[in-house]
């Protein structure tokens, strides 16, 4: 009976190791700012497991006490990884918005949306903030598109006027002038 219970616990441990490995992988990616703190935590974790860092552990090596302590540390890593994680706004929405404006205004617009996203993350959480970012981006598309089209139209009109003007000038240059010596007028005939 106790063996069965033990093996079930082992399975749990294996599962927890899997979670732990994932947590470490996540923490490695997310703990960009405080990698030293992360390394300290991992070392502490390895010390608690009585093992050399980054080696595989057999289930039999681990006592339930260690598992408990380890679990707490794992949770700590997960929480700190979550805390350190600075969620980023949707890249595709950013890209779409950046098509409509140029230069400093584009930078400012994306910056404003990022600032709002950051504020929404603190208030409502990353997932909802991401949805709100998409909402704001979609609401912004039409006015920006209209502005871009108006600008393009304005430049189109300017380009067209310049083209017509240059065509007319070229045509006028090609036409022979009445005062040219080779042209006979009605009076001279």
């Amino acid at each position: 009976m106790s063996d069965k219970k033990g093996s079930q616990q082992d399975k749990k441990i294996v599962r927890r190791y899997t979670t732990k490995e994932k947590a470490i992988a996540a923490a490695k990616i997310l703990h960009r700012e405080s990698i030293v703190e992360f390394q300290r935590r991992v070392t502490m974790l390895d010390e608690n497991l009585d093992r050399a860092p980054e080696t595989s552990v057999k289930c039999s090596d681990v006592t339930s006490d260690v598992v408990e302590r380890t679990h707490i540390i794992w949770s700590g890593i997960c929480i700190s990884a979550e805390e350190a994680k600075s969620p980023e706004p949707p890249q595709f929405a950013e890209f779409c918005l950046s098509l409509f404006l140029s230069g400093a205004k584009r930078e400012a617009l994306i910056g404003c949306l990022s600032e709002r996203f950051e504020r929404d993350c603190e208030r409502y959480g990353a997932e909802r903030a991401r949805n709100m970012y998409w909402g704001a981006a979609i609401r912004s598309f039409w006015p920006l598109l209209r502005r871009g089209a108006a600008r393009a139209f304005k430049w189109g009109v300017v380009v067209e006027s310049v083209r017509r003007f240059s065509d007319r000038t070229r045509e006028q240059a090609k036409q022979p002038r009445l005062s040219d010596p080779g042209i006979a007028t009605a009076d001279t005939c």
Partner: protein
Amino acid sequence: MIMELTTLEQHALLAIVALQPSAYGISIQDHIARNAGYEPSVGSIYASLDRLEDKGFVRSKQGEATRERGGRRKLYFSVTAPGQRALRESLKAMHSLSLAAGWKEAVA
């Protein structure tokens, strides 16, 4: 010079005047939402500001980059003298129209 202003342009100009010298996208949006009772999208604010800048009614100046903006710089706006004149004209026209419609009490 074209002096007509749309409602959002009017609101944006008033917000810039109220928030000077720290009027930028988000602060203008918040000011309008707080005082006018509707929240225009950031895109529509920037489109309006772009239009106003083309007309010569506002001027922009790049500010500092902050962490929460992902390292991107703010763009501060200020109203130029023609912008102030256009805003005054626009508000005066609105006031005259409301008076002509007999809305003196309602506006007051």
